[in-house]
């Protein structure tokens, strides 16, 4: 008998989804209660995850197709926290656009479920199932504001391109299966050797599919449009939660089934990383819409996390995970600020709308200032440490070129962050924005800003937690 306790979080969250759906059908005007119940469900799931799986160093279930280890538990917690905060700060936004329906929390929950399955997968089929579950939920979420043309366009674009990449991914999986005779990651890892170079196609297809999901250059084209068109809260969800899950799967693929083929994939990852860092930095300069700018900046940040993965060392993996965790906090803070730019039930998304913000809203602009400097990687803010760990791991492997290109692109990236700061602090002020924000929004902004600002006082804690992850 399998120890089902280990997958209790997934079981619980699936039952909650079904329950909420049923509730929505039978009870009228149940949006509010659904929202609260789904928050509650996420909370319980997180508690179960911590209780049941956090102490497990590595166990497999269901014929070794599901793996529970430190990395999966940690990343599930990050995913759940991200999902919780997204849900909690979206309600006001949704109400204003009159899309405060039960489907929203249910869709978010199902995509979280998909991601949790992905994170724990140790088998090609389980992985693909999780991936599709989360993607389908995300397609709908992108079009969630269906009365707006841009939102529908975003959803359609995302659907078409993502389906294509899923196709590539599936093709890659079938090639790998053909060569190894198994869908299980551990068996694949033992069966594969680098002699058969048709296998490289399989790896490349899988990596392309995954690179698409985390929007690494050159598979990033969908990101700016989708980010711009989707409702802001959904964009926030896009920029953090699926990335965490996809990154975990990326790590799992590279370091379990493909570990012996390191010569084949290392160059690919280095290329993806450099291309994302440089392109993300350069392309963001010309943007005028904040959401588009965030899209490019997130492309750049993914480049840095990939730099950690390219090192093929535990240090590197840990640094990537630290990077993505800090990135989640920073993005959450950034979007909290963005959601505060509201005047008479209208949200503002252009960089020019920030003009002179510091005179009317000194505290908000101070938070934004810290967040932007942190995103630019200026010490002593958290973003600097994220980059610092990554480059420490990169330099351990003597990959000087990657490190120098990465750091130089931070200088380019600093330019567009500075431009926002310039507009906020040096330009003429505009009308005031409303200040009656929901308590949760203020809470998430305050907490994340404080985390960013004061991370340098206790930097070891995060490192210690993450250092328990040993994949190789």
């Amino acid at each position: 008998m399998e120890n089902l306790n280990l997958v209790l979080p997934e079981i619980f969250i699936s039952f909650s989804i079904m329950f909420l759906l049923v509730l929505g059908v039978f009870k009228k005007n149940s949006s509010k209660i659904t929202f609260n119940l789904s928050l509650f469900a996420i909370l319980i799931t997180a508690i179960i995850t911590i209780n049941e799986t956090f102490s497990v160093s590595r166990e497999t279930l269901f014929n070794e197709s599901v793996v529970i280890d430190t990395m999966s538990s940690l990343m599930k917690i990050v995913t759940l926290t991200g999902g919780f905060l997204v849900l909690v700060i979206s309600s006001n936004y949704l109400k204003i656009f009159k899309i405060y329906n039960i489907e929203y929390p249910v869709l978010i929950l199902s995509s979280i479920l998909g991601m949790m399955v992905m994170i724990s997968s140790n088998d090609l089929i389980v992985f693909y199932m999780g991936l599709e579950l989360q993607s389908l939920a995300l397609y709908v979420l992108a079009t969630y504001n269906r009365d707006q043309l841009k939102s529908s366009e975003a959803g359609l674009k995302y659907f078409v391109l993502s389906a294509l990449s899923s196709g590539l991914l599936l093709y890659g999986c079938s090639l790998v299966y053909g060569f190894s005779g198994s869908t299980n990651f551990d068996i694949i890892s033992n069966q594969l050797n680098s002699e058969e170079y048709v296998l490289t196609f399989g790896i490349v297809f899988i990596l392309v599919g995954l690179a698409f999901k985390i929007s690494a250059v050159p598979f990033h084209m969908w990101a700016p449009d989708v980010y711009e068109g989707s409702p802001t809260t959904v964009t926030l969800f896009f920029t953090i939660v699926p990335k965490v899950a996809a990154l975990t799967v990326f790590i799992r693929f590279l370091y379990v089934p493909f570990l012996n083929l390191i010569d084949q994939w290392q160059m690919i990852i280095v290329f993806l990383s450099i291309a994302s860092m440089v392109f993300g930095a350069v392309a963001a300069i010309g943007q005028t819409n904040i959401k588009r700018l965030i899209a490019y900046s997130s492309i750049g940040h993914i480049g840095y996390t990939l730099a950690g993965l390219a090192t093929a060392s535990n240090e590197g993996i840990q640094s990537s995970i630290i990077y993505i965790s800090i990135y989640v906090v920073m993005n959450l803070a950034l979007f909290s600020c963005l959601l505060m730019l509201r005047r008479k039930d209208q949200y503002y998304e252009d960089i020019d709308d920030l003009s002179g913000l510091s005179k009317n809203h000194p505290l908000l602009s101070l938070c934004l200032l810290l967040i932007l400097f942190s995103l630019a990687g200026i010490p002593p803010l958290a973003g600097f440490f994220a980059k610092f760990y990554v480059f420490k791991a990169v330099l351990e492997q003597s990959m000087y070129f990657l490190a120098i290109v990465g750091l130089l692109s931070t200088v380019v990236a600093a330019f567009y962050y500075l431009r926002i700061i310039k507009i906020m602090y040096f330009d003429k002020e505009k009308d005031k924005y409303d200040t009656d924000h929901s308590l949760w929004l203020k809470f998430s902004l305050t907490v994340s800003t404080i985390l960013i600002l004061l991370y340098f006082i206790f930097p070891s804690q995060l490192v210690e937690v993450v250092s328990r992850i040993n994949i190789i």
Partner: protein
Amino acid sequence: MNFPILSSLILLPTIGALFLFFIKEKEGNNTTIKYVALFTTVVNFLISIYLWIAFDQSTSSFQFIEDRTWIKGFINYKVGVDGISILFIILTTFITPLCIISVNNSVKNRLRDFLIAILIMESFMIGVFSALDLVVFYLFFEAGLIPMFLIIGIWGGARRVYSAFKFFLYTLLGSVLMLVAIISIYWITGTTDVVQLYEIGIDVKYQNLLWLAFFSSFAVKTPMWPVHTWLPDAHVEAPTAGSVLLAAILLKMAGYGFIRFSLGLFPVASEVFTPLIYTLSVIAIIFTSLIALMQEDMKKLIAYSSVAHMGFVTLGIFTLQQQGIEGSIIQMISHGLVSAALFLTVGVVYDRMHSRLISTYGGLVSVIPKYSILFMLFALASLGLPGTSGFIGEFLILMGAFKDNFLVAVIASIGVILGAAYMLWLYKRVVFGKLLNEDLKKILDLNRSEYFILSCLAAPILFFGFYPDPLINTIEVSVTDLINMHNTNIASK
């Protein structure tokens, strides 16, 4: 001695800034804000004076060391001072209160935010001079960019945005390579602790590249020719207090970095690259002095003179002679005082006339005599007249240079003459001559706070000019040991 005196020096201004953050700013009534800021910085100055008194001058080992685990198994938060760094700390704590007094006239809006930025800046600067771990040093070194960017950008002059961006991106570009070098040092030696690194030494085969990476950062910050172009822009556009901080202290971070890290960690590479430094320094001295002659903007002229003076400093450091290095340190301290004073004197007339152009002025001596006397003193100190602190520094540097390389010393000496030329010519055009501009007739002489600030700066300039012993005694043992260490390292390699 367990009291963490250095950490309290670093933290106190930040705590003061935090206090300011919670005080509401009222229109027209900013006295509380200013007094809180002033109080904090004066207390900090007194602590640093106590530090100097308690400092043991007979040893070159680091004192007041604090060593705390910061990132487990990787970086320790380690601070400490030796004879070289203590002077820079005192310079910082001395200049900052003067900056705060000077904001009276120059900063009109958002005074509270301005003072917060200055106080945080002070924390970072003291941190730079006391850090004994490369990562901690880098952290403070880079963090200073944030407040300075805001000081230039928010309170600066007409082209403030351009200047702020230029300042930020130039320095950031220089520093990222240093970060690569610091992490590489960690992987080569297994530590980033400066004291341990002094003992272990770094393998010769890495030294050249690492030296260049550090150089890229320090050269931009110093600034050395040809990467000095950010400085005139930043200086000209920054508000007076910002220019003072920039000239008096920020530029010294790089000079300090050269002594502490480039010389201390990479002795062999330092020898290898001495010709490069000599060339760039000499070009800086001659070329920027010539540029300074042609300036029509007073602040720009002083900015270029800073580049020239920092050229002397780098020249002195890399003579690798006792006199040269001591001269460089004293020159840095002296330049810290003199350039601060010069920017403040320009600030005084700028506040009254709102023009920095030399042609606006002329004949000031007949309307504001007190101002003219002090201005003369600072101008003479800047060109290195005997009896002022500027002379001691330049003289020692040239002495060191003559020992090492005759040609370089001769060319550098020409720079001294050029320095006298542009400074005296500036003084002549501004202070002497006929009073042609009608508006100048109504100009007021120094008010009490300005008089106070400028005399505070004049006193040490004259004192150390006649009696430099306190400075030399403090640095002597540290510099001797640095050179001994350097020579043994060279001999053993």
